[in-house]
């Protein structure tokens, strides 16, 4: 197993910020909308560089989505930014009608997602946003794994010229382990580690946890494949089916509710193709609370140890299924 190294730490939201500044330079139609959290979500750099293309709408996320739709309609490429909870849940119906149904190429940029946002507590811990965005037709949902991948996802999102994109990222500094050589293509998952006993499919910050878990499993002679499912919609079905066939057991890992997220997407698909033993590492249908990101990952069961435990459960269940073949 090739070991994957972190080359320092940076926040995924910084990747968003840096991408925006580059895009601003490259494309005069790129505009950015802020709902009074510009420093936190780091669109302040764009606002400073291109003040005429930054639009403050105040604390009014519903309005922001409508304004974005109007901008897209007249040829602008709007990036609407705020915290995850207020990017997906607060303006859901506006996203649905004015953006998704109307196929407006709006980029919905959601920072501070997941329970790992920490001390702000439950009201600010967006654990339902993947569900909300995934259920919408015409929506692309991307959850990049580190600084660079976020940057690339944001830049790559320009290639989607019809219909919206939802990009989910996080507040804290986290390990940087992808580089320019790492493939990145929307809708195409990356297999980071090859493995034969079990597959861990992860998104966002959970990818790094999955890598660590795979190393811990390796120490116990368990060969775990690790897939970075950065695009949650459309799902890379091929890579999932292959993993299910070749390893026969799946663990999914995400900083999201256990229902309707990445794990759910994988189980929906496999039920329709190749029903496979799967364990879910996710927040177990409960609201979060204040605390440090790492403390909460442990308390709410989405840390690397939980992935390891889930893998063991899955392996045990896999052994229990005798002689199954693909249907």
């Amino acid at each position: 197993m090739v070991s994957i190294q972190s080359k320092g730490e940076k926040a995924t939201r910084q990747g968003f910020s840096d991408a925006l500044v580059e895009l601003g330079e490259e494309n005069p139609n790129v505009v950015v909308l802020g709902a009074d959290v510009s420093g936190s979500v780091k669109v302040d750099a764009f606002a400073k560089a291109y003040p005429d293309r930054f639009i403050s709408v105040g604390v009014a996320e519903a309005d922001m989505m409508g304004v974005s739709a109007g901008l897209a309609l007249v040829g602008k490429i709007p990036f609407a930014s705020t915290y995850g909870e207020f990017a997906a849940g607060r303006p859901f119906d506006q996203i649905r009608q004015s953006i998704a149904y109307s196929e407006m190429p709006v980029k919905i940029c959601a920072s501070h997602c997941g329970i790992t946002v920490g001390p702000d507590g439950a009201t600010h811990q967006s654990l339902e946003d993947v569900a909300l965005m995934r259920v919408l037709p015409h929506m692309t949902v991307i959850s990049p794994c580190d600084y660079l991948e976020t940057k690339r996802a944001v830049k790559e999102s320009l290639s989607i010229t019809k219909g919206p994109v939802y990009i989910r990222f996080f507040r804290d500094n986290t390990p940087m382990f992808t580089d320019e050589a790492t493939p990145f293509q929307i809708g195409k998952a990356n297999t980071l580690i090859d493995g034969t006993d079990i597959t861990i499919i992860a998104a966002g910050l959970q990818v790094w946890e999955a890598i660590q878990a795979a190393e811990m499993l390796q120490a116990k002679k368990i060969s775990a494949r690790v897939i970075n499912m950065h695009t949650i919609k459309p799902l890379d079905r091929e890579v999932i089916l292959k993993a299910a066939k070749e390893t026969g057991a799946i663990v999914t890992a995400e900083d999201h509710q256990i229902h309707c997220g990445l794990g759910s997407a994988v189980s929906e698909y496999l039920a329709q193709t190749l029903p496979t033993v799967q364990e879910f590492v996710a927040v177990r249908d409960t609201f979060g609370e204040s605390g440090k990101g790492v403390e909460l990952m442990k308390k709410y069961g989405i840390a690397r140890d939980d992935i390891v435990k889930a893998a063991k459960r899955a392996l045990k269940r896999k052994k229990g299924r005798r002689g199954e073949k693909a249907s």
Partner: protein
Amino acid sequence: MRGTDHQKLSIADLKEMARQIRRDIIKMLMISKSGHSGGPLGLADIFASLYFNILKYDPQNPTWPGRDYFFLSAGHLAPVWYVTLARAGFYPLSEMSTLRKINTRLQGHPAPGYTHGLPGVEIASGALGQGMSIAVGATIGLRMDQKPNHVYVLHGDGELDEGQVWEGLMTASHYNLDNLTAIVDRNFCQIDERTEKVMKLEPLADKWRSFGWNVIECDGNRIEEFLGAMQEARNFKGKPSVLIARTFMGKGVSFMEDDYRWHGVPPSEEQGKQALSELEPTKFGDFVMFEWEKEVPEVVK
């Protein structure tokens, strides 16, 4: 080509067109047997004015970059818009009979262009309260490119209960969007009851003024007055303008007038006949003739 120029009608013809629009609405709803009568009938004068005097557009090229943008925020008012678009040449008159039927471009609420969309419809509406924000976005975007296009958005009065409208109003004022004109269909009716009973809106003009808008009150069923108010709005600089246009729900049909219960129902066959008998035929001609209209009365034979 600028549609407006070749379509501009005289005041007399605008009135005739408004009546034709009302006839079309009645016939359309008699065929669909589903849809909204009251609001659309009340807006016939405004839509005739918009599409045959005010707006710049090219029906042959609905996305002509020089066009004015018109957003119908209250999507349930679609029938009056659809009828007007047909009369303005955006799509064939005969298609009006497909309202709300499967596979139609005349969706129950306006659909975006890419699937069932109708030429002239810019974006979806139907879930109330979203049009102002969209209009604000379009106006800001056009201004960024120094484009002179004017943006119009039409709201129902009941629709103003939605908080998002007030968010949009604030933003429009914050950016001094004087290329934006809003129209409020002030018919004092919404679904459950009269507006002031469902949710008090008065003093409505004060509300808009305090949100930074230039307010013009006018009679939305008097075409001359409406056109004048529109002119005033377009001339006003430094602030967005709103026309609070007093209309009557069901206008033109005696038994519907000013009655909120006509918000969302189509006329029955009998009621439709009665309505048509009250709305004299016009020189523009109906888009469809029903069997019973062709019958020559016994006595004449």
